[in-house]
Every structure is written in C-alpha cells, then in structure tokens.
C-alpha cells in the first residue's frame, strides 16, 4: 500500500511539474511584462537595462525555477486587469463555480442512481427504453445548446398557439406547451450571504437558489446521460454474477437483492469514474458560465483570454491543473483502498 501511495503521489507531483512548465512556457512566449510596465517613451537601451534587472534575459531554466519558487509560495504574479494578485482574483471567483458544480453534482447523483438502477432491473420496460433513448439524444446535445433552450423555455417563455383555440383539447395542448418563463438567466443575483473569506454564497436565499437552477440543470445535463448509462451497464453486469443468482435461489426479497447486494458493488466503479468526471465538469463550467454570465472561474478565464491577461490565464491553468491532479490522485487512492483486487504497484487496473 505504501508503495502504491508513494507512486501515485510522485506521479501527481510530476504531472504538476509538467503543467507548471507548460504554464510558464505560455507566460514566457506570450506576455512581455515590459510592455505592461513602461510607456512608449522609454528608449531601447533603458528597456534592455530593465530587462536585465528583472532577469528577463536569464536562461529559460533559471527563469522557470524563479517562477516555480514563487508559485510554491502562492505567488503567481499580478493580474493586469484587476491589478491585484492573480490568486486573489481566483479565490474571489472560485466559490461561484464551486456552488455550480456542487448543485449539478447533487442533481446528477439523485437522478442518475434511481434511473440507472431502474433501467438495469427492467431493461425491457418502456420507461427504461424511454430513459435510454433520452440519454442517447442527451449525449448529442452540446451543453451550451441545452442552456440556450432552457433560457428560451424557462427564462424568456414560449407562447404556443399551434392548436385550434376553440376546442377544449386544443386549448389544453396550447397551455401544455406554453411556458411561463421568468427564471433568472443572468448572474447570481444580489441576495448573497457572506460565509467566510471570499465566499459569498447564493445557497441560502431564494433569489440565489433561483439563479442557480438553470445553470445547474445545464451543467448536470451533460453528465447525466453518461452516468445513467454507466450505472445501468455496471448494474446489469452485477446482476448476472453468481452471488446474485445464489441470493435469488436462496429466496431473498428482490428489493433486498437489488438495493443491498447489487447496488453496493455497482457503485464502486461508478464512484471512481464519477470522481474523474467531476474534475472534467470544470471544463464544462466554462461553457455554462459563458451562457449564464455566471461570475465564476470559467467566465473569468474567458475574459482573461480576451483581455490577454497572461498572469491570470497562467494562474487559472495552475489552479485548475491542481484541482484535476488532486481529484484524480484521490480517486486512485480511494479505489486502491476500497478494491483490494486492484494491482497496487502496476499500472491502472
């Protein structure tokens, strides 16, 4: 176990090293800090002197080591736009993204488990087929499009008059397809509660929660089909196994077999894949936050790109890289702990 632990952690450190190298190369290749610091009137000789003084003429490796040394101490430079430390800017935007990811994860967990289990237990039922069909279509819809459709339906609202209004059923159908709208589709609202540090939370007020609904549903929609399919596939495989057949032969109640014995072994692979997927959700937050103008990390990153705010871009890469590496390493370690059959020293099982 110790060897496994050491191996995984050293691998994580290696990956983080590569990320920092890439991030530094971006900073080195794109940004000219001199342009930000001095005006046009400064002569070439003076520029050269400043360059020398700042160490910008040092070899790549020396500059990288300086960058890495500062990064370890939590100094990733100042954002050009916000003119304060880039990490501080990130800390201000992180809570909004975290709340979005938490909300979406909760939705995914509470919807995908029951639906997946049902589809596995009754694969032939029309409801299962319906869910599987919807999830195939769901995979094909990009997250920003789901978001736009949700805005049209539940924020702007749709008035339908396709059916004749004079008949009862026509009116009923028109009413059925007409949506009210009115849900907020922009930002987080004003009614935020200050928790601690930079965390302004929208989880405790009606307005904050209302703003959270559409972005969370959009973000959840991209992962939900994957999880439903995964849970269904794992569960169906478990249901074929000998110990379930034995439990059935023994005469245990179906509910007990399905939910106590089968579900337990289904969730193991689901948790590991799920951990990785929640890391991947960070990429989708960029899209979701753009559509809903959600003031989180993703929107901040995109704005940093359009403003060529290099230190902020680099800081975002480092922070997101760190999040990815930590979640993946934790997932690996937990998997190794829970499932003793995984080869501890070898490659991924």
């Amino acid at each position, binding site marked *: 176990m110790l060897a496994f632990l050491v191996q995984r952690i050293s691998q994580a450190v290696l990956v983080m090293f590569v990320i920092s190298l890439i991030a530094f190369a971006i900073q080195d*290749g794109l940004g000219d800090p001199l342009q930000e610091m001095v005006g046009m009137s400064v002569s070439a000789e003076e520029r050269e002197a400043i360059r020398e003084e700042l160490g910008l003429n040092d070899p790549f490796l020396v500059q990288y080591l300086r960058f890495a040394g500062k990064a370890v101490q939590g100094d990733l430079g100042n954002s050009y736009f916000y003119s304060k430390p880039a990490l501080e800017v990130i800390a201000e935007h992180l809570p909004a993204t975290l709340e979005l990811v938490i909300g979406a994860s909760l939705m995914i967990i509470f919807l995908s488990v029951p639906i997946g289990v049902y589809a596995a237990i009754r694969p032939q039922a029309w409801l299962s087929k319906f869910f599987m069909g919807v999830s195939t279509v769901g995979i094909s819809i990009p997250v920003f*499009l789901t978001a736009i*459709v949700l805005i049209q339906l539940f924020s702007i609202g749709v008035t339908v008059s396709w059916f004749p209004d004079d008949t009862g059923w026509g009116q009923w159908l028109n009413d059925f397809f007409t949506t009210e709208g009115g849900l907020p589709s922009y930002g987080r609202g004003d009614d935020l509660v200050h928790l601690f540090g930079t965390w302004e939370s929208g989880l405790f007020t009606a307005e904050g929660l209302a703003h959270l609904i559409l972005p969370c549903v959009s973000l959840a929609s991209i992962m939900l089909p994957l999880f439903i399919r995964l849970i269904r596939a794992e569960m169906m495989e478990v249901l074929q196994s000998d110990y379930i057949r034995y439990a059935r032969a023994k005469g245990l109640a179906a509910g007990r077999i399905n939910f106590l014995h089968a579900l337990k072994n289904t969730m193991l692979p689901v948790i590991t894949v799920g951990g990785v997927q929640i890391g*991947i959700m960070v*990429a989708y937050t960029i899209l979701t936050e753009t559509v809903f103008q959600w003031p989180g990390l993703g929107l901040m990153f995109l704005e940093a790109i359009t403003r060529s705010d290099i230190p902020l871009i680099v800081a975002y890469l480092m922070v997101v890289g760190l999040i990815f590496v930590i979640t993946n390493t934790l997932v690996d370690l937990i998997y190794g702990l829970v499932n003793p059959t995984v080869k501890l020293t070898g490659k991924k099982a």
Partner: protein
Amino acid sequence: MTTATVSRWDRFRESFFWYSFKRDKVAVISFVVLMLMVLSAVFAPLLAPADPYDLAQIDILNSELPPVGLDGSDPAFPLGTDAQGRDLLSTILYGTRVSLMIGFGAVVLQAVLGILFGLLAGYLGGKIDAVLMRIADVQLSFSTLMVAIIVGAVFKASFGNLMFGEIAIYMLIFIIGVAEWPQIARTVRASVLAEKKKEYVDAAKVMGFGTPRIMFRHILPNTLSPIFVIATVQIANAIISEAALSFLGLGMPETQPSLGSLIKSGFDYIQSGSWWITLIPGLVLVVLVLVINLLGDWLRDVMNPRLYKG
C-alpha cells in the same frame, strides 16, 4: 463500397454487415439523414439561395426576419435571416460544410497520431509505452475539451484576432486533432496488445520481416474495425468540440461561420425574441451529431465480435 468488380459487390451484399444494416431501421434512417446533410453541405454553393460570404448580397434591412409561417416573414428567406440580414438557410448550409470539414479533418489528424502512437506503444511496449500512455492518461483526465480550450486560447492570444480568423479552420483541425488523439491511441494499443500474441505475428517475425512492416502491414489491418467504430464517434465529438470552441469565441469567425459560431451570434439576440437565429442552427447541429452517434452505436454492435457470434 461500390467497386468495379461484380464479385466484390456481391460479397458485400451477402455480408453480415449489409444484412444487419438492412434490418436496423435506426441505422438506415440515420445513414439517410447523414447522407442528405453531407450532400447538401458539399453542394451548398449550388443549393443555397444566397452566398453568405458575399457582402454585396446582404441587406441590413432584412435583418432578424422570422422563418416562414410566422408574422413578418419573407418567402425569400425560408428559415428567416440573422442579425446581419443573411439568409439563415444559406448560412446553415455553409455552416454545416465548415463543421463537417473540421470534424473530418480533425478525426483524420487524430487517426494518424492515434494509430502511430497506439501501434508504437502497443507493439514496442516498455518505456515508449509507459511514456506515451502516461501522456494520454494525463490529457484524458484533463478532458479533451479543456485541452482544446487552452490550446485554442494560447493560439488566439499569440496570433491575434484577425490572423486567427483567417486560418481558423486549420487551427481548429489541429487543436481538436491534438486534443483528442489519446482516445484512438488507447483503442489501437488495446487491440495491438491482443493481436501481437497471435501466431501470424510470430510467423512474420520468423520470416524475418522488419518491425515497421509487421506493425503496419500485418497488425494494423487487423485493428481497423475498432478504429473505424471509434473514429465515427470521434467525428461527432469533434463537431461538438468545434461548436463549443466557436461558441466561446475561440473558433470560426462570424464572417465564415460554422454551426457553433452561428449559435453564438444568434444567442446575443435571443432576449429580443429572435430565437430562430440560434435555435435552428442548434437543431441542425444536434441532428447531425445524433445521427453520427447512432451510426457509431450500430457499428459497435455489428463489429463487436462477442455480439457477432452470440
């Protein structure tokens, strides 16, 4: 598939492939829809009522006209117009063309990289395998979309807006191809590992063939069916990735729109009630991706030897 020799055509018609295709209604419908979309995209310059790239044909007075059937529509613009007054049907036809081009191009690049690295990793093993697969793992754990966004952002920042707009198609093919090669490399590696234990490989070695020849002439042809399956799904993924990048403003410029940049430019007008500018290209995108995914599902079922024998 239609080759000159009659015998091969007959063989194809008697194959399991054709048999299961005929029987699967979903596959047939998906294939027909896909072919219609591909053909109309390829022949867009002939089919489209207007040329969206030609500024002389655009009249700003025609902007934001709704599709036929709604109040205020103009029969000259069957699907309405966008905010610049371009005919939406024409822009969608041209946009589908751009999206398909990037999708295919990116998958060709992915396949080249993926097959090369997958073969090397699987057949040679050892350190090469460890290094290549570690890179693939890390890249996948970051999600291909994230990698594509970062590479796109860096390119855009270093080339500048104007320059990036001009070479956007090639950039996107490159970005998506590089971001997604691990998917194919992993599949290739897995099948190479299975193939390399077989006797024909030993025979080839005994006959004294060189390693490259064994890799590309003997093993590669036997790994083609899983590559084919995953490449199909990857086209759908590449089209979605392209749309996502364009939506974020890291892809095709509005003057030369893909489906993604059409959706983006329409999104700015959705609050003013012009839903068609964004939702009609969106629907086209979803249908395109959906039929490719359905065909991919069907291909996987047909080519999976376990299901084939069972």
